């Protein structure tokens, strides 16, 4: 008797927990849409803040949108330059040295676990040491550090599964390691690389703690790497701290814009992952 009750009780608890996952996602998105949508206007996404913006007058947050896109794209490019060779090396050049590769994976997993605020603090010390002021460049470097382990490990996970026979047959035909890497490995894992890039882009665009110290904040769209820049998450955070209701409402609208960007990135990650799978050698 008790057994049956226990069985049923836990079954329903499990169903409730699973359903609650969808519920939380809906609740969060619905809250942001409900509060943000009424204040979302063309003006918000097409103009930079005008005089008196922070007292509720006209203007938008184009500076933050562009700033965030610059920041995250720049960081992804820098991180790609470092992460692509590392993940390729782990799966081609060092393929036979299992211990070394596993050690590298361990270090990367540890790096992935470091909170972004620590990267921010580190970026700040590095910035002072190198004598760079708070700028787009400093932000890009800090975010690149932060997304580096994410990118390497996600690419590595895909490259790990490329069959050894494919690589070996390329070697047998006389290819150099570089040719195997770029003409076989990169092509074979292209969907995975795109996924990794988009994943890192999403992480970079949504993070505040890493850029809090390093990018500064400005109402202008940056025109050079050495200028300060605004970012979307920071715009949400700062405007929400304002005592003026209109400015707070704009924070909700900015939050909605950020959410939409993240959802678009997230959905295109899935789309690209499926789309390019057709061209692969099975």
């Amino acid at each position, binding site marked *: 008797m008790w057994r049956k009750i226990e069985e049923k009780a836990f079954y329903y608890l499990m169903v409730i927990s699973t359903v609650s996952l969808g519920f939380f996602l809906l609740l969060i998105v619905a809250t942001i849409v409900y509060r943000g949508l009424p204040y979302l206007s063309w003006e918000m996404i097409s103009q930079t803040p005008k005089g008196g913006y922070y007292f509720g007058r006209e203007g938008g947050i184009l500076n933050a949108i562009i700033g965030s896109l610059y920041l995250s794209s720049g960081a992804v490019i820098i991180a790609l330059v470092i992460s692509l060779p590392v993940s390729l090396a782990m799966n081609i050049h060092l393929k036979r040295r299992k211990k070394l590769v596993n050690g590298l994976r361990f270090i990367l997993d540890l790096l992935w676990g470091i909170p972004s605020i620590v990267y921010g603090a580190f970026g700040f010390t590095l910035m002072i040491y190198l004598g760079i002021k708070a700028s787009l460049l400093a932000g890009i470097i800090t975010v690149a550090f932060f997304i580096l382990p994410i990118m390497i490990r996600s690419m590595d996970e895909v490259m790990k599964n490329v069959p050894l026979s494919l690589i070996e047959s390329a070697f047998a035909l006389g290819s150099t390691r570089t040719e195997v890497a770029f003409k076989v490995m990169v092509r074979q894992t292209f969907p995975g690389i795109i996924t990794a890039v988009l994943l890192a882009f999403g992480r970079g665009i949504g993070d505040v703690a890493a850029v809090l110290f390093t990018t500064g904040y400005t109402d202008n769209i940056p025109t050079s790497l050495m200028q300060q820049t605004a970012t979307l998450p920071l715009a*949400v955070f700062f405007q929400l701290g304002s005592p003026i209701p209109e400015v707070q409402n704009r924070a909700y609208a900015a939050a909605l814009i950020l959410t939409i960007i993240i959802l678009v990135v997230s959905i295109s990650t899935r789309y690209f992952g499926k789309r390019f799978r057709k061209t692969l050698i099975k």
Partner: protein
Amino acid sequence: MALKFRKFKDRFSSLWIKIALFFVVLLPVVITLSLLYKSSVVLETNGLKELLFSSVWRPLAGQFGFWPFIVSSLWVTILGLLITAPICMFSAIFLTQYGSARLLRFMQPVIDILAGIPSVIYGVWGILIIVPMVGRYLAPLFGIESTGFSILAGGLVLSVMLIPFILNILIEVFKTVPVELSEASLSLGATKWQTIKFVVVRKSFAGITSAFGLGLSRAFGETIAVLMVVGNVVGVPKGIFDPGYPLPALIANNYGEMLSIPMYDSALMFAALILLVVVMFFNFLSRVVIIRLEKKV
């Protein structure tokens, strides 16, 4: 000629790979050393013991006691983990043991999108939903006045943020339990739930612990979402309805004044160092357990 050029390309890319590898291996060392170097000033003048266990926080007088912040961080982290633990366990078991592969395929995007939502969005959501809920309904239930900006609000927001993170690891952990084991248990007459309780969960106990270990270190370092709802009042919190001031929030809130008060920057870098050490410690242990687990399979 062609061969020469191919060899040159190969040598060039080898060099590029070596530099990149060197960079990655060096990064954690450089991060640790630079934070250690920066916080050495405050460590020399105040001493490690006083920094960690004193609750006197007077930056202008050069007194930095991190105890209130450490306690706040612990409260928020543990509360977040406690709330999230049953949800993660139940849904991970359901998705791997009861549900079909189709259900898991359907739920995976939901989990991934939850994981991708930026922490500032979780913070906004916390201010709009969680804080009023705590202030208006939960606190009066216990007969306590609270603005809602409290340890509990921080823990609640954190618990939702942790769900996708921990759940993904738990799903992987439960997948490693061999089907034969649970089938053997079922054939002996055990019910499905008994099988889960005595076979599946027991078999993957190490993996579960490490999943929560990773969750703990993730929670400990979470900054913006917690900062937005936790109240940020310096002082050792006495209950879950009191406002708190976790370590990451301290760093994030004070970076502006960091350079205008002597030793303040050093103290904040020390806070970052504490975060780094705690997070690395739990990450290290959990990863070692997970690697052992993967070897067994």
